[in-house]
Structures are given as structure tokens and as C-alpha cells.
């Protein structure tokens, strides 16, 4: 491999790499605003100027191809002075309104001002006045004065979202960004521009002014919006999710996620319609009861049916762990062969960037852990028929609102004598249920999803339920979480009385006379790893933060469809 020297250190690089790429690969930081690893090189911010020996002028590290034997200095007098000057230049027209700006705390310009600027300006004239609070699109707000014209958003729309909508207009210090005439920045990936904007010029309409970034905790997780399983961070303050941001994973989503996933997959966690404690239907109305009463009721009623009259529906919306325990519950506790789940496909949703037509996060996982009818068992269509004919009298549905998504199922479910629903929010299916158990959402439990490409990824709890404790259960904690007390109003966010689906099933199976030994999701995963080929040899540590690709041959063997 060819080598070059940077800051007296000899580093290897691949032919064709730029100086900045080689430096970052070797852990050397070169500041950059306009350069982004996934976007084309624009070279207009000039902050990455470095000194290369035998070159007449300083060069920008982002567009200079590294060459054998090159000697680069990032910390020489000339390079440092150049950076100071560039910072001074960028700050000429950048308003000093960090206290008002939402980007504060995660702003590249703020960080670099602290690191690379001398903090003095020779500029005594007035700053340019530009448009503030301009809606570039339905989800993104643009502040022209804060923009440093790095063109990352323009390049993102062209290159990643494949939908050129933005452009520079005007020249010199009056340059600003706008959409093409008659257009809006409304592509399904538009909000990624907010993340890549190095300053607070582009802000999130949904999140604007809701919280300071340093007041929130951020938890690594996975988006549940579709089968892609984009890696995300869940940002929580006062036990409430305030925003999701994409998390880098080259094998899955790179740096991006779609706007649908970012906006529509978390609000139900703090929704008004969350189910708080179990409910039993008494005289036609669902009534709040305590856990013991609901467990006993469920067990007595399940016991009253022969095992062939009970069917189970797993879910592609919930974790492998939940589905695995449901399969165990159906098979070895109740002894029913009727178990299936429903795939939810939306042919209009997918595209060839990230979004998949399968709008559930864990279809593959549900298949792998055995949510498929065995030979003598009924699949969903079979169950439907059998319920109509009153051959199946009891149905347990886990975390899937089938009434909203399956046509004409409502009347069929009316034929059931017992409908047990495990759900996180009240929905059309719980309206028909005789027994409702509140379940923890994806943001409240540990678990794994297998995405469309066969990559298994972990979700981690970010929001505490009644039974969870942020500190004892190893949650990510913000400063406020660490030092708050029960008397602080900023610590009293609502906690739901809900449990992960597998815990509910475990309690039920205990009462049915077959104890399950699992105490935490990790133990279920160990059991899965021991019993299911596709997961063989894996544990939570292996899956880690970036997931593991399951061996293809194992998947093919396991998935019969």
C-alpha cells in the first residue's frame, strides 16, 4: 500500500483516496464543513486547508488526492493561520445567536469556532440581512442568515434523495438557498438535510425549540417504520421521546433515514391512547384491572377450550424475542398448532433508496423464530375460515392491529368467544377484545429485529415503564435523569404500566403450569441461539450496535416461503 506522511506520521492510503479520507481512516481529524463522506466533493468551505510540502499554496484536504511520499502538515503555522482566517470569514455574516439557535450543542460551526478560531473579528460593518424562518418544505425550516453556503443540502437532494429541489441563488455575501420555482423540498428524505447541515440553518419543524440537545439522553435503536431497519438514536427527555435521528451503519442505512420513519414511528409511545394497565371486558366495556386479576381471568378462560380451538397470531411489528416466546407458548404450553402472523405490504411505500414495501420491521425474524403454522396447523386464512365456522373459539393476537389492516376481519372476529389482545395502544382490534394486556413498545424493551436483508439488529429501551428503572436497568441517562428526584417536575414524565409481550406470556404460562425460565430478553435470545439454526452461536454482544448478517444458508433453510 502506498504511504504518505501527515503531521510526521506515516499513514497508508488506498489509491484515489483524498487526504481527508486517508486522515480520517487513521484517526487524524481535519476540520470540514462542506465535505461529507457520502456526498460528492464540493470544496467551498475551505476550512480543511492543509499545508503540503512543495506545493506553492495551501490545498484543501477534501479534494486533493493523496500521493505517495506526500508530506502534509495540519498543524503548521500556515495551516493554523489559514483556519483562523477561514473561521473569521465564515463568521462575518453568521449571526451570533447561538442562544436562540436550535443547533446549539451539536453545531459544527460552534465546535470549530471553539477549536480553530482565535475568537476575534476585524469586521465592523453590519451583517447581511436575509430571510429567516423560511419553509423550504413541509418539514424543514430554513434560516438564511445562519447558512454558511456549504451546499451539503443541495448535494444531498441531488445525489442521495435523487430529487434535485434546492439550489443557490444570488452571489457573494447575498448568496442563499432556495427551491426551484414552484417546487418544495418535500422529498421523502428531506429531513436528512437537517442532520448534515453543519449549522442551524435547516431545522426540524417537528422538533424546533422542544429541547436542548444536552438535556436529552440518546439511545441506540432501530427504526420500526419498514423492513429496512435503519439505525437510529432515540432522544428522550423526561421519559418522553422528542426526536429520532439516523445513526451511521454502512451496511444498512449509511447516514440516512426517511422522513416517515423519523416522524411517524415514535409518537404513539407517548400517545394519549396508550394502554396503561390490563383491561377486561365487563358488561361490554373494557375496564381497568390489575395484573393478577387479568392473568387469572386469561388462564381460566384459555383452559376452558380444547387446544385445537385456540389460535395465535404473532406479529412482524414486534421483536424476535416476543415472537419466539409466543411460539413456545402456543406450541409447548397450550399445545396448539395454529400460529401465524400477517405480513403488511404497502406497494406504494418502497423505493430504491432505503424504504421497503414491507412496512413491518421484523417479518424475517417472525418467520425465523417459528411463527409459522406447523403441518397440521392453520395459517391465517385457515384461521379466518375456522373462526367463521366457529371451529376456533379463542384467539390471542400479539401487537398487531389486524382490524385496521385486514379487510372484513371485524365481522369474523365477532364469532370468537375469547379474544385476547396484547397491544401498546388502544386500536380497532382492542375494541373487540375481551382481554387486553398492555405491552411495552419498541422504545421500552430489549430485543432484536431481522431486517429485509437478513441483518439482525438490537433495539434498546429508551423510555422507562413502571417496572423499569433507568439507572438499574442500564438505560442511557441524561444529566437530568442522573440527578433528578421525584420532587422535580422535570422528572415526573408519565410511566406506562406495561410489560414486554414475552413477560406477559411468561406469567400466563407459569399459571398454566409450565414455567418459562426467562428473566430477561437476553436469555430468550440465548435460547433462540441454541435452538434456531439462523441464530446459532450469536449473543447480544455479537449483535452489538451495528447488527450481524445472518448466514444466508441458514435463513434459506429456515424460511420455507
Amino acid at each position, binding site marked *: 500500500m502506498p504511504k504518505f506522511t501527515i503531521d510526521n506520521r506515516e499513514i497508508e492510503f488506498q489509491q484515489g483516496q483524498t487526504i481527508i479520507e486517508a486522515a480520517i481512516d487513521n484517526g487524524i481529524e481535519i476540520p470540514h464543513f462542506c465535505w461529507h463522506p457520502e456526498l460528492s466533493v464540493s470544496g467551498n468551505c475551505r476550512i480543511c486547508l492543509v499545508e503540503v510540502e512543495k506545493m506553492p499554496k495551501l490545498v484543501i484536504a477534501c479534494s486533493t488526492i493523496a500521493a505517495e511520499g506526500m508530506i502534509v502538515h495540519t498543524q503548521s503555522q500556515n495551516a493554523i493561520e489559514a483556519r483562523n482566517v477561514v473561521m473569521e470569514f465564515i463568521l462575518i455574516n453568521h449571526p451570533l445567536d447561538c442562544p436562540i439557535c436550535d443547533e446549539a450543542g451539536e453545531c459544527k460551526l460552534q465546535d470549530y469556532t471553539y477549536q480553530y478560531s482565535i475568537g476575534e473579528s476585524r469586521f465592523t460593518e453590519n451583517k447581511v440581512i436575509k430571510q429567516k424562518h423560511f419553509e423550504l418544505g413541509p418539514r424543514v425550516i430554513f434560516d438564511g442568515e445562519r447558512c454558511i453556503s456549504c451546499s451539503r443540502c443541495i448535494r444531498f437532494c441531488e445525489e442521495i434523495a435523487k430529487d434535485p429541489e434546492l439550489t443557490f441563488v444570488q452571489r457573494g455575501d447575498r448568496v442563499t438557498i432556495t427551491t426551484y420555482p414552484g417546487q418544495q423540498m418535500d422529498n421523502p428524505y428531506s429531513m436528512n438535510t437537517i442532520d448534515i447541515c453543519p449549522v442551524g440553518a435547516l431545522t426540524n419543524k417537528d422538533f424546533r425549540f422542544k429541547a436542548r440537545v444536552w438535556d436529552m439522553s440518546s439511545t441506540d435503536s432501530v427504526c420500526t417504520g419498514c423492513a429496512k431497519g435503519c439505525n437510529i438514536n432515540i432522544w428522550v427527555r423526561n421519559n418522553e421521546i422528542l426526536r429520532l435521528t439516523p445513526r451511521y451503519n454502512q451496511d444498512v442505512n449509511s447516514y440516512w433515514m426517511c422522513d416517515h420513519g423519523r416522524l411517524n414511528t415514535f409518537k404513539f409511545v407517548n400517545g394519549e391512547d396508550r394502554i396503561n394497565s390490563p383491561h377486561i371486558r365487563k358488561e361490554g366495556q373494557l375496564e381497568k384491572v390489575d395484573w393478577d386479576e387479568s392473568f387469572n381471568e386469561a388462564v381460566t378462560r384459555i383452559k376452558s377450550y380444547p387446544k385445537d380451538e385456540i389460535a395465535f397470531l404473532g406479529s412482524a411489528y414486534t421483536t424476535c424475542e416476543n415472537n419466539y416466546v409466543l411460539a413456545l407458548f402456543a406450541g409447548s404450553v397450550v399445545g396448539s398448532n395454529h400460529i401465524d402472523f400477517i405480513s403488511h405490504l404497502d406497494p406504494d411505500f418502497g423505493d430504491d433508496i432505503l424504504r421497503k414495501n414491507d412496512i413491518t420491521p421484523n417479518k424475517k425474524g417472525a418467520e425465523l423464530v417459528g411463527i409459522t403454522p406447523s403441518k397440521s396447523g392453520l395459517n391465517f386464512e385457515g384461521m379466518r375460515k375456522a373462526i367463521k365456522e366457529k371451529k376456533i373459539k379463542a384467539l390471542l393476537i400479539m401487537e398487531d392491529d389486524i382490524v385496521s389492516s385486514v379487510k372484513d376481519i371485524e365481522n369474523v372476529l365477532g364469532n370468537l368467544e375469547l379474544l385476547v389482545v396484547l397491544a401498546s395502544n388502544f386500536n380497532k382490534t382492542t375494541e373487540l377484545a375481551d382481554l387486553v394486556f398492555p405491552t411495552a413498545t419498541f422504545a421500552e424493551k430489549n430485543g432484536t429485529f431481522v431486517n429485509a436483508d437478513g441483518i439482525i439488529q438490537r433495539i434498546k429501551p429508551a423510555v422507562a415503564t413502571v417496572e423499569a428503572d433507568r439507572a438499574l436497568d442500564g438505560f442511557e441517562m441524561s444529566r437530568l435523569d442522573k440527578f433528578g428526584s421525584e420532587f*422535580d417536575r422535570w422528572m415526573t414524565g408519565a410511566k406506562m404500566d406495561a410489560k414486554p409481550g414475552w413477560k406477559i406470556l411468561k406469567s400466563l404460562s407459569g399459571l398454566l403450569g409450565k414455567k418459562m425460565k426467562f428473566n430477561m430478553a437476553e436469555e430468550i435470545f440465548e435460547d433462540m441461539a441454541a435452538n434456531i439454526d439462523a441464530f446459532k452461536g450469536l449473543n447480544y454482544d455479537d449483535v452489538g450496535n451495528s447488527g450481524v448478517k445472518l448466514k444466508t444458508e441458514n435463513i434459506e433453510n429456515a424460511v420455507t416461503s
Partner: protein
Amino acid sequence: MEQKAVKRREKDLKFWERIYIPEILKGLSLTFKNMVRPKFTFEYPEEKFVPSSAYRGRPVLVEEENGEERCVACGLCSRVCPALAIEVQAGETEREKERFPEKFEINMLRCIFCGFCEEVCPEEAIVMSKDYELAFSSREEGIYGKDKLLVPANQLQDRIDFLRQYK
């Protein structure tokens, strides 16, 4: 090394000390001197103590003449507060400074009157007042919202001038 205290015994006393009367007079003269000295105690609460502008009483928010707060809800006071007494929830307004505190609460049970909030404030919006009368009878009452915190700027001119001079 600890030094041994010298104990004065009766036999060590000098003659004038031994006859006792001059010493009594000395003591009485001190008593009388203090009797006629000017008083520095107050008949509190009838008479109030007015602190100097350097005094750090309870932190308050500066209210402009038009009734709006100066605060832009940046959250720096909340961040710097070593006792986590301050909670700010920002909101959006139509004003030139587009951010304002929808909620601004100081938990006076937590506040330690250090003045860091005042020092860090980029807008001169939170200052330490001269108010030291902070009695309340429940935890809930101890949390001061915007209604209690906003004080017109002209009442705080003293402190603001002090800050401009020394901060």
C-alpha cells in the same frame, strides 16, 4: 508542636490587677461605650434590610417595559446551575428573537444563590435580586414560575448597573 497555654495563676497577677477595682471599671467602661455606640441591628420585619447591589438574593427574570421577558430560553442557566434548580421550556414566537420561555421555573428549594445563572446569561435576562424573603410552606410553592420570576427592569437597575461594571 502544640504550644502550651500559659496559665496565669493568682500569684502571677500584678498589683493593680489584684486589687480588682480598676479591672471592674475597665469592664464597665467597655459596657458603657457600647451602650452609646450607634445601633447596627434592625427591628426586622418592621424595618427592612436593603442590601447593596452586590447582594445575591433570589434570581429573577428581567421584564422589559413592553411586558415581555428578555429571556430567549437558551437554557444556559439551566445547564450551568450546579443544583439543577432551573427548568426552561422554549417555545416559538413571532418576535425578532424567535425563541421565548414557554415555561421558566426555578425550584427555590434547590437554588443555592450562587449567581452562575446570572453570570452565564447572554441576554442579561436573569439577575440576582435583592429579595431575600422566601418563605413557603410546601414543596409545590417552592417552585417559582414566570408569574413570580418576572420583575420590571427598572426595579433591577441597581443590579444591572453593577453587573455592567464588574461582570
